[in-house]
């Protein structure tokens, strides 16, 4: 019990200290944050899997527990938080409030994974949302206003839906703790159970940026402070995924028994989520292809990758579940890596507008190498964790018989190659502009964090079995169907097997053969200058614009314009207009200032109230 208090104390204390002392010396705030995260990690390691009761004021208990799923999620959170705190060492320009809010945010996220009842879950959910909102605003209200307000509105709406869901469950089972709910969920009538789960999944879906509720994600991710974005899009979206997992598989464990339309071996709920996941992945990656700014591109790519997870959750069999959770980890890793690299680029060049960057491989080679590594994982190339999770998801999709969503997912992953190449080419390759001639490489804190992120990406790529092993223990602890046929380096599914180590060794050997063939060819001549290129015989000076990056896929955009026009943004703006119109009408009607009208309306309202009290009896 005490360890939990120490854990919470270390983070909140650290936040307080960082906030108070931060203004004195920037070094102090960075050190406090770094220390707080490490201390938290050490404390969590010693906690082991046990449950803690925390008695709050007027006697009712609040339960926090740690089981294998929590450990999986918390270690992922603390890992990325450690990376962010490491990166923050070279960002003293951020205000002390940012550091404090960051620590509170990490605390909120961890508590979500540990909470075992509705109150604590909702409390840590709000803590996480509020601190994230604060952080978006941390450097300047006027620039970031629209994104922050949109984020806040959406997360508030999500929170209310979750609240409604939980309250329905509470009203039906009158139990606060999750295990009590699970035990007594039998008494809940099917109708109420389905509405509760629907509200919960929708609420968590907002946080996990499902398609209809994804509007806030690109702006919030791209407007949040650069070092934090990796954590924001990598981990906070996973809380939504965790919520869906809890609601869908844990609380409604009896959902299977509910007589419902079963499609392809999963409930109608699952089938809808499969389709939503597929459409999110496909739509978001097509939009990501046409983004002109690096942050926006990666933000849309995050929305698309979350679509994969939701698609996999929809297929509720062992393959789907393993795929979803492994992709959650994979996405957290490579998205944190790519966002941190982009933060490094923005720190050095001041902009993320891809058309004015270019040629940075000559000045920042390390960032380029790790951008390629991150890209390999994002695109799902066999030696990386990206492929392991995507392969399992495809196997689940085909094995489950969902043919059309699987083709959409495949199209989404091919579109991933398009926007990944545009990202790497526009920023690192191509000719170097004059204003970036003397850009320095990223500081040590950055490339250390790159290495720390790259190790698990390759490790789980070459040993997919290890990852599947962890996840199947989690699933078994929730007595859900788990994938059992795996060895350390290979995973077999009903359709076929995949051996990471063989592919890795094979590619290594092929690379050696390629290098041998390369060195047969003899010496090469270094290009005389940056303009020593084939330009149809002409010679150009340096300010000649050779960087082809604006409207990179204009021909694709022209052909997809009918698809890209359907945007949720316009739908919500339409709703906004509708509300403003209705409000305008009743403003004119009701507040017209004459007494009788007020009296008349009062009576109507009273009668309705009286009637409603009669009728309602749960």
């Amino acid at each position: 019990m005490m360890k939990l208090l120490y854990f919470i104390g270390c983070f909140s204390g650290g936040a307080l200290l960082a906030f108070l002392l931060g203004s004195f010396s920037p070094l102090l705030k960075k050190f406090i944050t770094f220390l707080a995260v490490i201390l938290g990690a050490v404390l969590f390691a010693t906690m082991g899997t046990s449950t803690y009761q925390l008695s709050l004021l007027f006697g009712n208990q609040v339960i926090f527990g740690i089981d294998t799923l929590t450990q999986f999620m918390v270690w992922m959170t603390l890992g990325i938080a450690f990376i962010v705190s490491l990166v923050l060492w070279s960002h003293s320009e951020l205000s002390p409030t940012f550091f404090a809010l960051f620590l509170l945010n990490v605390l909120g996220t961890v508590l979500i994974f540990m909470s075992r009842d509705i109150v604590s879950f909702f409390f840590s959910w709000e803590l996480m949302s509020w601190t994230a909102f604060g952080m978006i605003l941390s450097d300047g209200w006027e620039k970031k206003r629209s994104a922050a307000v949109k984020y806040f509105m959406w997360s508030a709406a999500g929170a209310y839906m979750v609240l409604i869901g939980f309250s329905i469950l509470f009203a039906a089972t009158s139990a606060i703790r999750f295990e009590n709910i699970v035990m007594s969920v039998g008494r809940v009538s099917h109708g109420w159970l389905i509405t509760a789960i629907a509200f919960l999944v929708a609420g968590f879906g907002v946080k996990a940026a499902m398609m209809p509720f994804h509007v806030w994600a690109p702006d919030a991710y791209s407007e949040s402070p650069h070092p934090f974005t990796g954590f924001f899009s990598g981990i906070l979206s996973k809380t939504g995924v965790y919520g869906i997992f809890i609601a869908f598989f844990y609380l409604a464990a009896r959902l299977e028994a509910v007589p419902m339309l079963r499609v392809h071996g999963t409930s109608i709920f699952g089938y809808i989520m499969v389709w939503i996941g597929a459409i999110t992945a496909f739509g978001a990656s097509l939009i990501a292809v046409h983004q002109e700014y690096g942050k926006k591109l990666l933000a849309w790519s995050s929305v698309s990758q979350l679509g994969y997870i939701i698609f996999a959750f929809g297929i509720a069999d062992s393959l789907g579940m393993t795929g979803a959770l492994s992709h959650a980890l994979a996405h957290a890793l490579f998205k944190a890596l790519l966002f941190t690299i982009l933060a490094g680029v923005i720190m050095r060049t001041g902009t993320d507008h891809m058309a004015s960057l270019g040629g940075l491989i000559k000045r920042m080679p390390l960032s380029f190498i790790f951008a390629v590594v991150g890209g390999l994982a994002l695109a799902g190339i066999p030696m990386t964790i990206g492929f392991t999770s995507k392969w399992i998801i495809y196997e689940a999709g085909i094995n489950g018989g969902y043919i059309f969503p699987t083709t959409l997912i495949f199209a989404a992953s091919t579109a991933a190659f398009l926007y990944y190449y545009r990202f790497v080419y526009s920023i690192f390759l191509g000719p170097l502009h004059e204003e970036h001639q003397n850009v320095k490489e990223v500081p040590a804190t950055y490339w250390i964090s790159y290495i720390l992120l790259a190790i698990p990406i390759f490790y789980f790529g070459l040993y997919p079995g290890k990852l599947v092993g962890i996840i199947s223990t989690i699933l078994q602890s929730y007595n859900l169907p788990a994938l059992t046929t795996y060895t350390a380096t290979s995973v077999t599914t009903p359709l076929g097997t995949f051996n990471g180590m063989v592919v890795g060794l094979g590619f290594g050997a092929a690379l050696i053969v390629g290098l041998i063939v390369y060195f047969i060819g003899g010496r090469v001549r270094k290009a005389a200058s940056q303009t020593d290129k084939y330009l149809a015989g002409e010679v150009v000076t340096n300010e000649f614009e050779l960087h082809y990056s604006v409207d990179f896929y204009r021909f694709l955009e022209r052909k997809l314009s009918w698809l890209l026009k359907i945007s949720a943004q316009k739908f919500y703006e339409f709703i906004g207009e509708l509300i403003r119109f209705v409000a305008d009408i009743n403003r004119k009607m009701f507040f017209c200032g004459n007494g009788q009208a007020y009296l008349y309306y009062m009576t109507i309202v009273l009668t309705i109230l009286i009637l409603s009290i009669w009728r309602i009896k749960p």
Partner: protein
Amino acid sequence: MNGKNEIIREFEYFIGPQHPGITGNFSIKLKAKGDVILEAEARPGYLHRGFEKLMEQRHWIKNVPMVCRICVPDPDPNEVLYAMGVEELAGLEVPERAQWIRVMVLEMSRIQAHLSYLGGISGALGLYTAPQWMTGDRDYLLDRFEELTGARVYHIYTTPGGVRRDLPEGFEDRLRETLDYIEKRLTDYYRLIFDNPVFQKRTIGVGTMDPDWAIENGVTGPNLRACGIKADVRIDDPYLVYDQIEFEVPTETGCDMFSRAMIRFQEIQQSINIVRQVLDRMPKGPFLNKPGNPLMWRVPAGDVYVRVESSKGEFGYYIVSDGGVKPYRVHVRGPSMTHGIHVIETLLVGQRVADVSPIMFSLDICPPDIDR
């Protein structure tokens, strides 16, 4: 972060002198955003030998070998123009048979120019079989030229006063046989190029120009007839014996690449008919009225503008003489002077990067006309 508006410099590049996608030695500097062209600037001048200056250094007859090298793909109009101009200035009377032979040579040159044009435009679009077939068939026609004039491309055959040699015996039957062979091949070309759905998809509606804009901006020849305007120098400003030959002038109303290619295709058929008529009705008699000792021959003072319908458009010479043994001034007005600079610069704006080379081939731009 993306609030700052960065200066987006459009992406510039050259369809330069050394590029597989241009006709001859020419260069266009393009400024594009994505794959839409914002601005095009034609840069001629890679083939400027200063023809007009050199002509002023040479006697009247010595210019004949020089003149045919101005427009490489279609050399005969230049020779006929120079000869007609000098004859008109000097009042030299050209024998009837020479005029018929000149018409035959002009039309044969138009056929071989249009064959290489169709080969060029389908090559630019990627259909490499068409240029192979067409250039191969064009070669048979060049053999006939070789028999008649002794050279495949630069014939130096029409001189002021007539033509240098009469038809070799047996030439007419071989020429008829070649024409029949080419006529038979036209159906194959039609099915290969114009019936090809991908060719239609790539050319219909691309590079269109408005008819009045075309007249106003000096578009002439097949490019103008592709906009539905029946303007042909052979009918408007008849020269040689074109008024005694019946032929109709094909016009299309599409004003785009497809109709420009279709116009040339139909003109090959027309030219074959004309050459057949010439072969049937060619009178006997002398073929050259020698103007006397070339080094001493003086052309009386005066100036003249002569105009011929070449395969690329209206080709004109403005010859001025001050009564000396050498021409005082020869101004060559090639059709590509407007097609190659002003017309293509305005036509390319808004088009896609992939269509630059096909549009240039469809306008049949011949850079030596511009640079002379």
